[in-house]
């Protein structure tokens, strides 16, 4: 703006003794006094705190960040943790597709699920109930006894005198209380007013005569072992026997059986535990976690019934009844839970959870189905004899139902790995945010730095010498000032980038390009901001010097024979510093905005380097589906600009109380 008018009293005289302000009385200096006033301004202090927190985050970014800025984690792409999903309703209210490859699918086709139900169990990361059953927990392990086994439960009252205590081992026939005896070998669990007997399923072989064969199915009462003293161990329940080196084990859950074709190579070892998803042979994988047994050309996976508690967080309590799909232990952060009530569909490698608007058609009255499974239908297409599709989508045909799944519009996987989710490449947003703070804050300091190093001396010289020097120097500034700043920066950016990219090693420009590459593209942004930022301060300084050089103290200094340089640096400069500091602080948001703008339009930092500008740009592209990717960096950018604005306002009030409340 080329203006002949001063609208603010910045160029007024510069007497700095604010005798009218009672706080300035006493021996405190100008700056100490200003600091006192600044710290009494609540918003300025808030701004200062935000800036300091940001600076700390930026400085300690490698420590605070969870991952590097370019650690791509495809399966985390666009994922968000629960609190973020709850923050943005759009993330919740849409179909969801989960990749189930490598995980065990626990939901069944067409099953209605509720919020928090576990859908997929990823190998090794967590355990889920593979059958409905009863959980028993002791100090170090917990056990799942399937519902097919009738667990002995006895109601006890407070007055019942028990003959056993909690977690006692009992053998069949031992007295539990009164005249009630244990029907089988097991461990006593007493919870509230109930006594449950957890069946014993593992017996030591040493000193016994094994009466059963490996993989033999046994019925209740079959003799399993004969001890040295002649007592027999009877099978308390029907099940499958596994004879291992040390133990005879009764598997209550029927084992999975795989026939290995001739010529196939078995890729697991006998007796080893395998995780769900482990390849057994060829391309056959085990759907469950358990112990593998290889007998001839068959592989048996014996489902585990007992697990070490370890450090995991147990989500079930002792003797609780659970259903398939409920989470038992949450050992890691990679579980997938249904994040809304809806309907589950399983197709190929995907598990799709869709909101409640699924069309269901009951097949009970023997009508003829006109559609095939997974066929795509549009509205009005017949599904069965007298039923047409009322939504566009994919058909799923089960034994009893025809379901139409609406066309999927995208999904947000619920993952807790990253605190505020991941971007479209599965990079941690939080880590990129704290590294991006470096770029923004550097822009906030480079702008004023260049201004003060270039603009201030320029204005000082121009204003102090006046005359023709002043005239020419200021004409140049006027001309540069009239040049549209953003256009100039955009042109300069394009110029720097391509020049540096095409020069030979050894030249100055090449060195600049190397610096830029090393700094992730930050260097040229700062060069562009620096080259355009100094003019404003040059003008302001000149105006201040013009009035300062007419003051008595300058005349006095001149009369004392001080040199020009001394007068400028020791007398004029300290007296005009206040308005300069105010002005530069108030301009900092502009520098931050320039950097964000440039990065947003793709002329800023180089690709993997995060800047809030290019993070918003990336996020804005997927705003409809994943708003969190744009809104978190936008919030960060807003906060830092907000903080600098308030700090600038506060500094102005503190350094120049005459302006307080004027603007």
């Amino acid at each position: 703006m080329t203006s002949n008018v001063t609208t603010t009293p910045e160029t007024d005289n510069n007497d700095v003794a604010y005798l009218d302000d009672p706080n300035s009385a006493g021996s405190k200096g100008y700056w100490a006094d200003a600091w006192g006033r600044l710290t009494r301004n609540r918003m300025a202090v808030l701004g200062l705190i935000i800036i300091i927190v940001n600076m700390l985050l930026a400085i300690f970014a490698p420590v605070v960040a969870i991952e590097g800025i370019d650690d791509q984690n495809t399966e985390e792409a666009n994922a968000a943790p629960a609190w973020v999903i709850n923050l943005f309703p759009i993330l919740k209210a849409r179909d969801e597709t989960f990749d189930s490859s490598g995980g065990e699918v626990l939901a069944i086709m067409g099953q209605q699920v509720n919020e928090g139900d576990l859908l997929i169990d990823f190998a090794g990361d967590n355990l889920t109930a593979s059958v409905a059953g009863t959980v028993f927990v002791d100090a170090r392990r917990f056990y799942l006894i399937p519902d097919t086994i009738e667990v002995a439960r006895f109601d006890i009252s407070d007055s019942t005198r028990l003959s056993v205590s909690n977690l006692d081992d009992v053998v069949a026939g031992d007295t539990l209380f009164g005249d009630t005896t244990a029907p089988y070998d097991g461990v006593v669990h007493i919870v509230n007013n109930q006594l449950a007997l957890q069946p014993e399923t593992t017996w030591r072989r040493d000193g016994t005569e094994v009466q059963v064969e490996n993989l033999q199915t046994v019925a209740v009462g079959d003799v399993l072992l004969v001890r040295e003293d002649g007592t027999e161990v009877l099978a308390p329940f029907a099940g499958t026997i596994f004879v291992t080196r040390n133990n005879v084990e009764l598997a209550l859950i029927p084992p999975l059986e795989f026939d290995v074709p001739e010529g196939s190579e078995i890729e697991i070892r006998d007796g080893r535990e395998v995780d769900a998803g482990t390849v057994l042979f060829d391309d056959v994988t085990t759907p469950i976690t358990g112990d593998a047994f290889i007998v001839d050309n068959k592989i048996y996976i014996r489902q585990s019934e007992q697990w070490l508690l370890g450090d995991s967080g147990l989500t079930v309590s002792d003797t609780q009844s659970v259903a398939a799909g409920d989470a038992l232990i949450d050992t890691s952060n990679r579980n997938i839970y249904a994040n809304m009530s809806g309907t589950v569909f399983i197709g190929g490698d995907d598990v799709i959870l869709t909101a409640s608007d699924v069309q269901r058609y009951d097949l009970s009255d023997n009508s003829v189905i006109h559609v095939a499974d997974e066929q795509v239908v549009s509205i009005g297409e017949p599904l069965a004899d007298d039923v047409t599709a009322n939504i566009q989508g994919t058909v799923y045909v089960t034994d009893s139902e025809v379901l139409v799944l609406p066309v999927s519009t995208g999904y947000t996987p619920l993952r807790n790995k990253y605190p505020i989710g991941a971007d479209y490449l599965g990079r941690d947003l939080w880590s990129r945010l704290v590294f991006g703070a470096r770029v923004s804050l550097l822009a906030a300091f480079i702008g004023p730095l260049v201004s003060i190093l270039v603009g201030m001396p320029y204005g000082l010289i121009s204003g102090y010498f006046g005359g023709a020097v002043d005239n020419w120097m200021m004409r140049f500034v006027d001309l540069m000032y009239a040049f549209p700043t953003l256009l100039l920066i955009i042109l300069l950016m394009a110029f720097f980038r391509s020049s540096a990219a095409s020069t030979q090693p050894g030249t100055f420009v090449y060195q600049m390009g190397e610096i830029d590459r090393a700094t992730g593209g930050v260097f040229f942004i700062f060069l562009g901001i620096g080259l355009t930022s100094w003019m404003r301060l040059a003008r302001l300084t000149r105006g201040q010097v013009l009035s300062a050089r007419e003051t008595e103290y300058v005349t006095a200094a001149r009369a004392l024979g001080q040199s020009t340089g001394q007068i400028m640096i020791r007398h004029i400069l300290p007296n005009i510093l206040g308005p300069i500091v105010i002005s530069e602080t108030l301009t900092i948001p502009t520098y931050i905005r320039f950097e964000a703008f440039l990065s947003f339009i793709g002329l800023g930092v180089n690709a993997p380097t995060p800047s809030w500008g290019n993070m918003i740009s990336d996020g804005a592209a997927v705003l409809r589906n994943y708003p969190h990717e744009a809104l978190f960096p936008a919030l960060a950018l807003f906060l830092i600009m907000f903080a600098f604005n308030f700090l600038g306002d506060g500094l102005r009030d503190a350094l120049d109380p005459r302006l307080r409340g004027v603007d």
Partner: protein
Amino acid sequence: MGRFIARRILWMFLVLFVVSLVTFFLMRAVPGGPFDKERDFPDSVIENIEARFGLDQPLIIQYLRYIGQIVVPTVTEPGPPRSTSEDYLFTINLPGGESALRWMNFGPSLVNRSRSVTDMFRENLGVTFQLGIAAIIVAVAIGLPAGIVAALNRNTIWDYVGMGIATVGVSVTAITLGPFLQYLLGVELKLLPISGWGTAAHYIMPAFTLGFAQAAIIARLTRASLLQVLNEDYIRTARAKGLNGRRILWMHVLKNGMIPVVTVLGPITAFLVTGSFVTEQIFAIPGIGRAYVQSIGNRDYTLIMGTTLLFAFVLVLANTIVDISYGWLDPRIRYE
């Protein structure tokens, strides 16, 4: 006064001249050219293409020819443009119907070779200006009343709320406000179209995105300026004289209080034009700002020159009008 205006306009053209010179030579110093993205042509083919667009001439000749095409009006046959190299922005059919006066030919686009830059302006410039005007309306319609209300009710809840919002306002940029509005009003509440251009509803979010920060600046400035005016002696005199409050407000306070506000209209125009780069990208608006950013990446020399000159012209013109309007608003200001 007349001399001042003449000097301002001369200065304006000097600035535009420097802008064109700097842009042209900076742009040509950038390695790479508009034909880099084509398949590997033999050198002879590239030479032919360059000769076709006059890029084989010395730089200074190219510069003069380009500026000449824009500045110097020509008289040609009437009718639609014969080629993309002869597409003029303004055409006046001269009396007699045998010739037409044409002015401002920005040349053919070097990358998008079926179109001329003039043609792109015709199509896209209107959109950018409509957006800019809508944003100015938002800025003034929100900023001015807010500033006035805050000043007249100083240190009341209105003042604090208004200035609180204004401080938030100056801290938001198009790239923070745009996605936020899109999410809230477009995705979540489904009140407004998320992006695109065409209907009245499409204007609201981009205009607000572009204008809100400026509204905040105007509000702060209006308040500050009015507070200063309210303390002036002539207001006290007017009150003492027994003028009614409304008359004092309109005739004395507002007229004098508006002067500083007018001074920021220049920079605000600059903001609205340059802000359009980002806003157009966020809301997928087919304006010239998007074309400009793309043209730099493509080294589309004629489009870069055309748009830079155009933006610079708008900004410099706005500043010149502001400079001239001071004297009209405040007769105490003497022109140098």
